[in-house]
């Protein structure tokens, strides 16, 4: 992540910690879209997604959790909070998660063409999409979607997909390891930037 962006985000968080409402507005304007998008992707409901967006940002405002710049970008941290908040909401609403038969394609539509010139962060975001889309068997990719974006356990996935529990565990573990291998390969051998 560029040093200037990190310094900007550090200053933004310092101002939020000082109860600067203007800083919260800046944070909203900068990050509400990815936060809401993730919440919607998990909950598939506008109202709930907006409530989760608000809840996640309120947690930041109320200092219920702290960002460590050494561990990742502010955006990643905010999306992590959003993810857990959305999963909690999904569970409390007892919502039957939709089996996203087209979720991978939706991710592909949102991805856009691979960039030729890019920042490291943007490239890595797109890399994960491409790996999931093209390199993993659908049977593994769809289970990762259920586990990660729906917060389902092995047994819940098995019940949803009507696959044996052992099959779910094996496919998930294999899929995640393969995803990691592909990720490392691409990080080590990125395509040349023009």
């Amino acid at each position, binding site marked *: 992540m560029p040093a200037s962006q990190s310094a900007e985000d550090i200053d933004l968080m310092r101002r939020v910690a000082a109860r600067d409402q203007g800083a919260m507005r800046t944070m909203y304007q900068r990050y509400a879209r990815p936060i809401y998008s993730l919440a919607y992707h998990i909950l598939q409901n506008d109202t709930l997604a907006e409530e989760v967006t608000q809840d996640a940002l309120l947690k930041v405002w*109320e200092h219920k959790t702290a960002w460590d710049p050494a561990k990742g970008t502010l955006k990643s941290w905010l999306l992590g909070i959003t993810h857990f908040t959305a999963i909690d909401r999904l569970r409390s609403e007892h919502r039957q998660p939709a089996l996203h038969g087209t979720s991978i394609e939706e991710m592909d539509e*949102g991805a856009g063409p691979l960039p030729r010139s890019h920042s490291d962060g943007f490239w890595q975001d797109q890399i994960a999409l491409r790996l999931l889309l093209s390199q993993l068997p659908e049977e593994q990719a769809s289970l990762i979607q259920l586990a990660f974006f729906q917060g389902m356990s092995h047994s819940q996935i098995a019940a949803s997909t009507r696959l044996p529990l052992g099959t779910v565990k094996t496919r998930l573990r294999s899929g995640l390891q393969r995803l990691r291998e592909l990720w490392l390969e691409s990080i080590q051998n990125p395509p040349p930037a023009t």
Partner: protein
Amino acid sequence: MTSPDFPPPAADCTDLLELIPDYAFGLATDDEQRTVEAGLPGCPEAADQLAEFQAIQAALRAGIPQRDPSADLEARLLVAIGAAPAPRSVPTQARPLPSRPALPGRITGARTAWAALAAALIVLVATNLYWAARVSSLSAAPNQPAAFAIADTAAVRWARMPPAQPGGSGAGFMMWNATSQTGIVCVWGLPAPGPGAVYHLWLTRGDQIIAAGNVQTDGRGNGALIFELKAPIDSFSAAYLTAQPPNDSAAPSGPQILAGKLPL
């Protein structure tokens, strides 16, 4: 059999690496979680793998299709922020009403915050110290009826007033008692109204538009107004704020800055 009170024996790195994907994605059992957490300090390779999975998760979260929330979510967040308590202790002595009053972002759980706000309003109106500096266009009615009306929290109504125009800044809310003719409107973060202009509050019902008074704002766009009408506020259906010259109160002539529907 592993007792839940004692961590299982530390696994070697090979066994630990097998558990990392499930652990990273929240799929590990309680025993497996304890095994991983006990073994991580002694297995750098497992720690590295965990960090790699966390980076993958960050990319997955960021890589989904993007969409925009509704236009008034920002204003709702600002209202909720106004309701969030400050981390330091609140002074016990009476103090002026803050320009960002404590109101929750959602309807549930409102009573406690409103009771606290009503108590603050009673003190403020009685002392007249804060409002003498902040409130404009107070009616000729004595302060006691205004305080009494708002203090009856059992029938308190409120309405949000988000920006009327897309991309507009600032927000506000209006609060009143169900049968009362007295209400309060609080605004924050409004842009400067323009040279020679102030914010006017208007209430409407059908074709009728009533001027409720001017809202003076400070350098941060924060302000408040206690107003009194000749009819119950519940009989009105909407409220909005315009920016226009201070004496131009015959009819709205400026653009709507904030607007809200009053609950029926």
